[in-house]
């Protein structure tokens, strides 16, 4: 575990506070420092290394997770703001070890190369399909516009999401 920055006592307290939430369906309870981001909490405390840090400032979307049904940047959310929340990360997408339809379509369409953007991209796509099972191309673009990809050129990603939406609509298990 990373060394936490020490409390200098000059700029207010950093006493650890109890956080309880549900991550990928499991109840989690931990003592966290108030300035810990949700991103750091998921990576450092829970070892959910699928959650990536790119910019740390809301620009790239690599850290996207689903909190209470909404896609959010975990780098711009404090861990303590997740008190009582339901959090879904990429680790929670696959069911029983197998890949979900959405993940399979990403593989099939070459929607990933280096893979760094992929967990965040998948979470934005998951949140989209949960609120809109039949999105048009413009809606898909809008939903993932906050997820930067430097490898694929985006089109394979749009195709993968479109194909996954179709499979899910046809009643296939997520």
């Amino acid at each position, binding site marked *: 575990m990373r060394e936490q*920055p020490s409390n200098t006592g000059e700029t207010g307290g950093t006493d650890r506070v109890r956080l309880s939430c549900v991550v990928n369906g499991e109840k989690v309870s931990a003592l966290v420092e108030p300035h810990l981001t949700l991103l750091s909490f998921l990576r450092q405390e829970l070892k959910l290394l699928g959650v990536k840090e790119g910019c740390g400032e809301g620009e790239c979307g690599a850290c*996207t997770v689903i909190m209470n049904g909404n896609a959010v940047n975990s780098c711009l959310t404090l861990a303590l703001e997740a008190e009582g929340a339901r959090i879904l990360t990429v680790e929670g997408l696959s069911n029983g070890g197998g890949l979900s339809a959405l993940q399979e379509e990403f593989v099939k369409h070459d929607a990933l190369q280096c893979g760094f953007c992929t967990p965040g991209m998948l979470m934005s796509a998951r949140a989209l399909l949960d609120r809109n099972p039949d999105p048009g191309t413009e809606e898909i673009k809008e939903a993932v*516009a906050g997820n930067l990809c430097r490898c694929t050129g985006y089109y394979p990603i749009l195709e993968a999401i479109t194909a996954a939406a179709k499979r899910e609509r046809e009643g296939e298990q997520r």
Partner: protein
Amino acid sequence: MVGSFDYLRPQSLAEALEFLHKQPETCRVLAGGTDLLVLIRRSVASPAHLLDIKALPETGRFEYTLGEGLLIGAAVTVNRLAESPLVREKYPALADAAGALATYQVRNRATLVGNICNASPGSDLAPALLVFEARVRVKSLNGSREIPIDEFFTGVKKTVLKPDELVTEVFLPDPGEGDKSVYLKQGRVKGHDLAVAGVAVRLTGSKKLCLAVSALAPAPLRLRHLEEMLNAVGFDAVTAEKAALEVEHFIRPISDIRASAEYRKHIAAALLKRAIRHCEGGGKSA
């Protein structure tokens, strides 16, 4: 996150105001955190206390009363506005602006009140609030006050708010029948970016124009003098052209990494003309 602060999440307004009263200088209000947490990360801000206002019952309010207007609580997110059929119908310029702000994920956290309290010259929501003559409702332990939005901004990242004051909500009067409005934003890229220029135009049912801009002056700006000039002769087929010709005399754009002042003047004229034409043409999607 760099910095070291404690985190408070009061459940009542009284508690929150009490805390702000005791620690006005070292405490910062936390709404969506999409401005504040970036500032803390960059060590531009280093508050000792963050006061999360999202659990206060008052801040969650989002209520429209016919003939009166729309009340938007301080915890209401930008996506809530972007996706509201009511906002789309009654306050289209606000719906446009909400949909043009940042990315989907950021909009799920960002609040309208946080956007105006942050007081960026490039605020996307301010021009729409200016043309609808929004009122900012503020509370502190010493009482409450209501600030017309065009008196709210005082400069780059500056507002009339005092450190112990909390904005509880913003109120938008009902625009009434026949009201048309639109917000047009020019960025550097088609995807998300801060505005190079943003223009809100409203044409009321009685054919009065209201105009406001962002990223074209040190603070979001209502173009009152230009409005008066145009409204004095009445709305007609050449109003859009005239506005486009004149607007450069009423704004104070700067050159920065996003655009030159010259380009900003040019784009302000183009957006203004397009926006007025849009309202003239019945106000269907721009």
